[in-house]
């Protein structure tokens, strides 16, 4: 019998939702387990790092890596898996673009530490302790990975072969990606394994879009009872659909909730935020300055909206500090 392709599933700074979406393959996961040999999956299986270190380079056919990079241990593991793998798939929005935890790039490491270990109302810290990379207690030396200044998407740390976005990627695209690797039917390296169209094209509300869209007033989702069949933007509710890649299954739209962009920018665009803002500006049908001011009054956190899932992929054009590489 031919040897089954080896697959590693690993998490960096992640929430585990990407592991859950793999389990959401349900019965199909048994087929996957038959087709491949899983060599690392810490959330579910007892394989330890040592067995990976002992493998030959590129012995793993596919490493599915989810989560972004925030500390030295994650950087080390990402590099180890890169070395041992033929294909690296950046899995989920955190690995692809930094994800929601990437919003932390709005704050400094010091600011986070100050709150968590000093200022939060429940902290009791009379000695002023702060977690250290190295601590000596009763003569024992204990170490922790170094916490970086910023969050990095996977491709800032290692070369990535393919991308599968989503928070999390839906099971149909997951199965499609895994079997594409097993059957060797992969698109050119660097491709995103999801549809190329914007979400609006597959939105069930698309037909309700007026011919000429104009927003008089932006309203916040909690303050209105949204029409469940009408385009959100036509109702003045901000929706990232026009600037976001399709493939999610439109599940948020079906529960009457606007898109927040977890699938990242559409094909050929690297920054969904600027794309959305330029589109939005064109929709605000203000004639006077006062109209314009009224129209945008409901826009409260444009940066947090436009870059909800992708801040590290656009804000890190600057050089990564030496201490962090």
């Amino acid at each position: 019998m031919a040897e089954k392709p080896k697959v590693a599933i690993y998490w960096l700074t992640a929430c585990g939702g990407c592991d859950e979406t793999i389990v959401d393959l349900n019965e199909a996961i048994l087929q996957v387990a038959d087709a491949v040999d899983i060599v690392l999956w810490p959330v579910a299986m007892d394989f330890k790092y040592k067995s990976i270190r002992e493998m030959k380079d590129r012995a793993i056919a596919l490493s599915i890596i989810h989560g972004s990079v925030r500390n030295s241990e994650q950087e080390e593991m990402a590099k180890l898996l890169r070395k041992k793998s033929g294909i690296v798939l950046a899995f989920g929005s955190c690995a692809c673009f930094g994800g929601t935890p990437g919003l932390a790039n709005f704050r400094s490491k010091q600011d986070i530490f100050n709150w968590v270990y000093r200022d939060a109302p429940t902290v009791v810290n009379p000695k002023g302790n702060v977690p250290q990379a190295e601590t000596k207690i009763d003569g024992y030396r204990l170490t922790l990975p170094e916490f970086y200044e910023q969050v990095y998407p996977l491709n800032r740390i290692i070369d990535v072969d393919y991308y599968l976005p989503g928070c999390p990627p839906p099971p149909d695209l997951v199965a499609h990606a895994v079997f594409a690797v097993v059957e060797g039917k992969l698109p050119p390296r660097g491709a995103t394994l999801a549809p190329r169209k914007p979400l609006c094209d597959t939105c069930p509300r698309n037909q309700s879009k007026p011919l000429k869209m104009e927003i008089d007033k932006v309203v916040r989702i909690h303050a209105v009872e949204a029409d469940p069949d009408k385009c959100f933007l036509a109702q003045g509710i901000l929706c990232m659909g026009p600037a976001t890649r399709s493939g999610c299954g439109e599940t948020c739209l079906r529960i009457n909730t606007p898109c927040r962009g977890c699938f990242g920018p559409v094909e050929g665009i690297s920054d969904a935020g600027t794309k959305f803002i330029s589109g939005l500006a064109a929709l605000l049908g203000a004639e006077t300055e006062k109209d314009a001011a009224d129209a945008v009054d409901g826009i409260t956190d444009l940066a947090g909206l436009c870059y909800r899932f992708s801040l590290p992929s656009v804000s890190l054009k600057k050089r990564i500090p030496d201490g962090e590489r």
Partner: protein
Amino acid sequence: MTQKISIDPITRLEGHGKIEIFLDEKGNVQDAYWQVVELRGFERFCIGRPAEEMPRIVPNICGVCPSAHHMAATKALDDLYSVEPTPAARLIRELEFNAFYIEDHYIHFFFLAAPDFVVGPDADPRERNILGVIGKVGKEIGQKVIEVRRRNRDIIRHIFSKAPHPEGGLPGGVPRGFTEEDRTWVKETADFSLEFARFAIQLFKDVVLANKTYVDLILNDAYSLKTYYMALVDELNRTTFYDGTVRVVDQHGKEYTKFHPRDYDKVIGEWVEPWTYIRLNHLKPLGWHGLKDGEGTSLYRVAPLARLNVGDSMLTPLAHKESQIMFETLGGKPAHQTLATHWARLICALQAAEQNVEIANNPLLTSKDIRNMNLKLRNKGVGCVEAPRGTLFHHYETDNDGIMTKANLIVATQNNAAPICLSVKKAAKAFVKGPDVKEGFLNMVEMAFRAYDPCLSCATHSMPGTMPMTVNIRDHEGVLVRRLTR
């Protein structure tokens, strides 16, 4: 020469962590540390975001228990906007929360815990996983496990878009309700889940309790800790999940305090140590007395065993009956045997299933009145739920536009952090003897924390991260003798 043993990463848990075990010259365990190795900073990067976006951001704290964070955030918005959800909205939220309990507790039991009990604590590590469990109990049961999970996650999806990242929680309501047509499949799911819940308890009795080795393990003093316990209860002191008052009982089961979730910061303190990113919770009025249990401790525990210890009774009849059987078997209430948490978890899932059968038959379920729009911003809101891994608090403050100015989160696993450190140390002292340590014994050390179903992703919300673990064994000079990687 002393030795240090590392288990790295610790596995079958949610997040990143490691265990350091230090041995003396004779190879006996001197000390052991359970370390959480990451941090993410959610409390800080939420600042500046509109409060109504919080239920859409916090599920990323943890993709295993995202429904707990989503619901705590939604309830914090209720409080922030001084609004009660409509009766139908509350019912729908409870249905979702129970469905989440069911799928979450079973994924832990069958995927993460059962490998130790069904396949065996010292079985071949390559077999010690869900596939090994299915191999032992048969594919048919494996398919049932998959089905109960899928069906309950369909309920979550119907209301909140995605099970691994729920969306759409609103102050005073829910984004989507049910029709009479939907009721048919909701009822089928509830009935199927109740049947499964009874089956799972029977399986536990047949496979675990009928095996003396496992029972001895559960009753082994190495897996016991005498601490305070915290959980939510209703006005009759019955164990509840979605809503309630926070109750704390002492090591003897006596009520220590009962408080409104808004007063959480008067009772809960978070101690900081330099060797771990996680903050160590304790009862603030008692002061921090270090990692010790028994008399004089200020540590408390949360999660399934705590829920059963804290409530005077369970809310539903079958779950209550099973809890009485559990306490009789363990020798009384409160029960301090950490591994009994697995049993208590199955009883909590049973309560959730019983409640959902009731909800599925409630006429109110299909009401269209699912939003209360009477919102009055009061700049501060606290949301509290009894999450599967324990009591969870979200505290938000905003400016007059409802933009976040402050966030403080007390997360389930963090409540258990100090007791987990202690449990790991106790198990290491009992089972590890150097220099040649068998892998199975190290797994028995891991079992000490796995019972808590610790979610380090959650616990490190304040820093970036998740939690596979390592065990390092070091000699008395701190030299690494063995790193456990299997």
